[in-house]
């Protein structure tokens, strides 16, 4: 007893919900289910293929005789009907009516069309299913920039002069209003090409005939224009491997959906260091000469070595009008290696006697072809595989653009061919070296400067030997323990020299020297 009442309640509720949910679906007394579908749910005026209004019936009597009437009410309030009989031979089947052809009607008005289906047989029911479809002027209601808006309207007098307008805000878009004659069937078709820079938002498309009786409702419809997507070609890099201080170049092309090349705006290129954390950014901008987007990233002597990745994040490219792309990340990688410094000793070759000064003017350049100014440059003199002196630190001379230093030849220094090796390095592992040879004669007799190939052979042998020894000797005890930071010392000394107290000492000493000189003069 309680159970059957519960079932009844549930069924009633279920039916109630079905009715409430949209009325598309009803179950009649015999238990059939009815569903109406309008396809397409939206179309434009004059669409020749019309709208299929399909009624799906389930749980049908089988065999059985059915009859339905479709009534469509257009936006003006006018209505048209069509009736279709069906001989049921299955439990589920569909029956369709096509609007407007089956109804003797037309698709000439924009707006919402209401559909109601009545059952005539076997039961009588004024509304077993309802539905709706919409008619507009355009093929879609929203567009991306660069796409074409197709407009189709019908219901005009043949050859009537129809005024067409497309308005954004309060102003017509360029080229509108314009006019066009309706074709012999009273239809008007045209298309409007949106551009990469079309204003974004709502546009109103409207048509009005000259002799045609004003439509009710009028031919007016809104469309929305959205930004478009930019597609990028794969990110290319100029060099897969660079040395620090060299510049890494990146290129890509950008296109709109219509195939046109993008040439405004820019994209930030994110460069990620090998640590996977540190990010540098460089902007890719349009390069007129190559017709591509280009970014140049100058690396420095301190940049991390290893594999870097360059990325254009999705939607990070924006043109001048707010269109953006790419839809997926663009990525490439490149590798940065330590810089090999070019070291060239400019002026040391020659013959030096005891007491003469061997000048060391050295040009050190980075792979990026500018001067190496920060780091350590030192010279080592080697003769017969023995280190004579060094490392002597060279100091960078801003005005000369060279590293300079010197060595004064001593009485105890060996006579012969010396090889001077200059090593430039910094704390970041960038390194380079250069070698030159010179003749030293501490006995005072000048050795012949022109011994030809014999000297060169000797030099070669000694360079080889010297380099070997140098590597071994670089572990010399004092130098491992005590670093001679000449620049720091000179800097500190200059600070002290600037002090007042030292100046006062110097003035006192100077006054004294003058006094002594004066006394001496008096005496003489």
């Amino acid at each position, binding site marked *: 007893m309680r159970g059957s009442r519960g079932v009844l309640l549930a069924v009633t509720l279920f039916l109630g919900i079905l009715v409430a949910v949209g009325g598309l679906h009803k179950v009649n007394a015999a238990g059939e289910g009815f569903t109406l579908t309008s396809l397409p749910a939206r179309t434009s005026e004059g669409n020749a293929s019309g709208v299929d209004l399909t009624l799906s019936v389930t749980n049908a009597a089988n065999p059985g005789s059915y009859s339905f009437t479709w009534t469509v009410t257009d936006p003006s309030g006018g209505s048209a009907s069509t009736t279709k009989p069906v001989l049921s031979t299955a439990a589920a089947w569909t029956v369709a009516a096509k609007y407007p052809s089956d109804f003797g009607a037309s698709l000439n008005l924009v707006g919402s069309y209401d559909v109601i289906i009545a059952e005539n047989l076997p039961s009588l029911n004024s509304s077993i299913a309802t539905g709706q479809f919409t008619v507009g002027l355009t093929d879609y209601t929203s567009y991306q920039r660069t796409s074409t808006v197709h407009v189709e309207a019908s219901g005009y007098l043949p050859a009537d002069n129809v005024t067409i307008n497309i308005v954004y805000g309060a102003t017509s878009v360029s080229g509108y209003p314009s006019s066009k004659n309706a074709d012999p069937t009273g239809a008007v078709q045209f298309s409007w090409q949106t551009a990469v820079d079309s204003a974004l938002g709502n546009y109103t498309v409207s048509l009005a005939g000259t002799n045609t009786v004003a439509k009710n409702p009028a031919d007016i419809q809104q469309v929305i224009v959205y930004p478009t997507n930019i597609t990028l070609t794969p990110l290319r890099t100029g060099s897969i491997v660079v040395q620090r201080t060299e510049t890494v170049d990146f290129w890509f092309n950008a296109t709109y959906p219509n195939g046109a090349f993008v040439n405004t705006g820019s994209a930030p290129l994110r460069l990620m260091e090998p640590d996977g954390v540190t990010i540098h950014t460089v902007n890719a901008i349009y390069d007129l000469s190559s017709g591509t987007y280009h970014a140049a990233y100058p690396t420095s002597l301190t940049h991390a070595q290893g594999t870097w990745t360059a990325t254009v994040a999705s939607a990070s490219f924006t043109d001048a009008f707010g269109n953006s792309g790419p839809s997926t990340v663009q990525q490439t990688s490149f590798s940065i290696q330590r810089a090999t410094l070019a070291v060239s000793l400019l002026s040391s070759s020659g013959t030096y006697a005891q007491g003469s000064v061997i000048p060391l003017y050295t040009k050190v350049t980075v792979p990026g072809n500018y001067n190496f100014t920060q780091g350590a440059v030192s010279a080592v003199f080697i003769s017969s595989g023995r280190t004579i002196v060094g490392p*002597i630190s060279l100091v960078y001379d801003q005005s000369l653009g060279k590293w300079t230093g010197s060595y004064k030849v001593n009485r105890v220094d060996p006579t012969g061919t010396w090889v001077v090796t200059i090593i430039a390095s910094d704390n970041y592992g960038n390194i380079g070296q250069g070698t030159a040879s010179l003749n030293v004669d501490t006995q005072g007799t000048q050795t012949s400067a022109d011994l030809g190939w014999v000297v060169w052979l000797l030099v070669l042998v000694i360079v080889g030997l010297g380099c070997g020894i140098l590597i071994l000797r670089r572990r010399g005890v004092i130098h491992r*323990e005590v670093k001679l930071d000449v620049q720091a010392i000179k800097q*500190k*000394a200059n600070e002290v020299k600037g002090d007042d107290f030292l100046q006062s000492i110097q003035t006192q*000493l100077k006054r*004294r020297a003058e006094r002594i000189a004066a006394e001496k003069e008096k005496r003489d």
Partner: protein
Amino acid sequence: MRPRRRNVTRSIAVHSYKGGTGKTTITANVAVALALKGRRVGVMDMDLEGPGLHVFFDLDPSQLRFTVNDVLAGVAPPEAACVRMSEKMNLNGGEIYYTPASVKVSEIMRTLKEGFELDTFENAIRRLQEKFGLHYLLIDTHPGIQHDTLLALGICDHQVVISRVDQQDIFGTGVLVEISSTMDKPVHLILNMIPPRIRESEVLKFARTLGAHFTVDMAGWLPFSEEVIGSLSKAILTLKMPRNPMSQRFRGLAEAIESFA
């Protein structure tokens, strides 16, 4: 043995950037080495804050009537504060005239507070040279870059800078040498307490490297010596143990000083 230049006395300031580099030890030993060669050598303790020479010369300055402090204050004539050491030390015909500095705190404080006149100091040097016919006047100084010390250095004919080869010492020595060279006086370098594991060629190479960067002339170097440190500054090795290799070294330094141009 004749002095190289009869009537010119060399005043030589022995200085260092850091303390404890061996100034006093070297001053005392080189003075003895020079005297043993027959030279007439003046030794003046200008380390007014931390005098130490009296320990080597085995004298108690508080027992003396005058010290260099009195000379600088203009209280006493320089010769009155000078002690002749040759009898006590048996110097083989040579002479050492030693001017100690006061070890009394009150006097040290007074001298430091009042400072001294450049002229007074200069006159004192000249008087000692003339009175005792000195060939050399060695002046032990207080380490570091201080007004009075630098002033004294500016008066002397030569500056000898003592340095160890440790990182801090070398840095300071570099700075000191740079400053000293602005006084237009020759600057000489002695590297001291070189650890035994460092080869001579390494020391020379390092000295040359220094010479390549700074206007300083390498006067010599001394190894670290157990005998020197073991003598607790009480004995002058050159006098007590002339055969010791270190004494030989000190004599080498004396030679270098004699060759100062």
